[in-house]
């Protein structure tokens, strides 16, 4: 996937199917300056997600969201900015056609948090960029390998914890961002816990961009429409661009 290199990258996250008009939200995020979008494919047991994304996932599954349904809707917006699917290993491992189906729907990349280096080989070099994650506890040796094998970008998890909004950017983010950007030609995006424009601006200084997830899904779950969601993302965009 091709991510911009002339400005800081902003990648909002949206749980596929969490609300009826989720593709309107998706378009609003693109219009508000998203450089790429991460779309969560709901899984019943999201073990790396905190309360907000768990709730969004539950809402999607309760509404009857299916993989096929989400892929169909995604194909309607594909071709605008890079689209990156994120889900758990179960969906990927059980279905030989999984990566191909995502590619056909218009996805450019895939994030699977519970598919570490040891387990991901069979899903690399499919015609979908497999984005690898790094955590504050990852050793330098592993970071080297992650930097070498990741495609599209490297997802730097800022905290030792689950997804969810946090008051401040974790101290561990700076150290991880430094260690990664030193050894990585791919863009490094910081994610987990980034909620406010100020945090996004601060994080963007440390790396090549940010992922915003729970802060968006809380707004969606609280009933924010596409316009309100777009306004929120625009405030993040502006803070990041002002630096």
């Amino acid at each position, binding site marked *: 996937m091709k991510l911009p290199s002339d400005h800081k990258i902003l990648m909002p996250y949206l749980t596929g199917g969490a609300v009826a008009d989720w593709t309107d939200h998706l378009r609003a995020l693109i219009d508000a300056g998203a450089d790429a979008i991460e779309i969560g494919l709901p899984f019943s047991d999201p073990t790396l997600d905190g309360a907000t994304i768990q709730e969004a996932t539950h809402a999607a599954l309760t509404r009857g969201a299916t993989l096929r349904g989400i892929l169909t809707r995604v194909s309607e917006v594909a071709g605008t900015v890079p689209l990156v699917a994120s889900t758990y290993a*179960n969906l990927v491992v059980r279905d030989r056609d999984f990566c191909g189906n995502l590619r056909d729907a218009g996805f450019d990349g895939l994030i699977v948090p519970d598919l570490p280096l040891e387990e991901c080989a069979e899903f690399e070099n499919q015609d979908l960029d497999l984005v690898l994650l790094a955590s504050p506890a990852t050793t330098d040796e592993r970071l080297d390998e992650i930097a070498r094998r990741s495609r599209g970008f490297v997802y730097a998890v800022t905290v*030792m914890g689950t997804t969810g909004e946090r008051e401040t950017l974790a101290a561990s983010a700076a150290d991880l961002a430094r260690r990664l950007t030193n050894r990585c030609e791919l863009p490094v995006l910081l994610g987990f816990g980034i909620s406010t424009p100020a945090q996004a601006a601060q994080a963007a200084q440390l790396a090549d961009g940010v992922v915003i997830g729970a802060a968006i899904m809380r707004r969606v779950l609280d009933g924010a429409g596409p316009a309100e969601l777009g306004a929120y993302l625009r405030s993040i965009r502006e803070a990041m661009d002002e630096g």
Partner: protein
Amino acid sequence: MGDLLIRPHRAPARVQLMDDPGPLGRFGEYGGRYVPESLIGACRQVEEAFRSAWADPAFRNQLAGLLATHVGRPTPLTPAVRLSAELGVTLLLKREDLTHTGSHKINNVIGQALLATRMGHKRLIAETGAGQHGVATATAAAMFGLSATVFMGERDIERQALNVFRMRMLGAEVVPVRTGARTLKDATSEAMRHWVGATEDSYYCMGSVLGPMPYPWMVREFQRVIGDEARRQCATALPTAVPDYVVACVGGGSNAAGTFAGFVDTTAKLVGVEAEGGAGASRGTLGVLHGVRSMFLQDDDGQVLEAHSIAAGLDYPGIGPEHVHLRDLGRARYVTVDDAEVVEAVVRLARTEGIVAALESAHAVAWVIRAAADGTLPAGSTVVLTLSGRGDKDISALKELL
């Protein structure tokens, strides 16, 4: 009942079954370490610590000593005299119900708590279904002066109130889990989420042969004391020294794995008994949950289904990876029994032998009763059955049912 023959063991002769699964934790195509990058370091540390401890005679001696002085090992191999006569087989019960805290879970927990201490951890985290693993964890924490936090589904908290009270009395914190069906699967997810943020000071004490490498292997090794003892006891209890059948109930599969480990290199046929509504091996399909690649109950979209069993300890939609491997090799077979058969079996065992078994363990009894009646177990067969726990925790549930 379908195909009742157990296929002969057809693993290549040189491959040792139920051995060290190697650094990747593979049991055939199952197992592995499907955890977020944040947990890789913690899993590796546990693996390294376990490898070194398990190779250290001082650790093994200390563990054996604790199992003798605090757990009550060795547990007896009790001939079920009257039930055997009724069924026309020779049934021997491996009495894990007589251990301290009342189930086999304590064997594993004492081992892991000793390991946690050796690693310098001060706190244990655990998931629990029936509460037996939680009680064992709370007990070991008290013994070793550690703190314990146990995650338990709200529904199980209602079903197993006695064990919740026991855990709290032992000084453990019990955290109710309100997501999903509020049973073991959800408790395990929540415990893993908590672990991601607590790797520095906390040790995850997994209760069955599930989870990422090294847990399925390590828990089997800590439970193999069941099978190793039973094997020695059979040498004197049976003229043939080796039974025809070895039977155990299967939730995640730890008591079965520990039992099978003692007999896997013999001619004994190995049978794991799953709950009708929680049969990962019998009805599951390939997937990944809670860090391990194995068989899980799931829908066509890959959403993991809720298990439903009268026995909270079997209410898990998957099975340990090594069991699936043993099944694929034809070395073990997995069968199911339903709730009604289980309740009947509890009563029948109580009235013939004076033993009130846990509902989980009664699954194994129920299969033996059925298999003896329909000829699956030929008359005169010798059977070792692991009675994984006692029924005290289930008395109020049984009161409702009977």
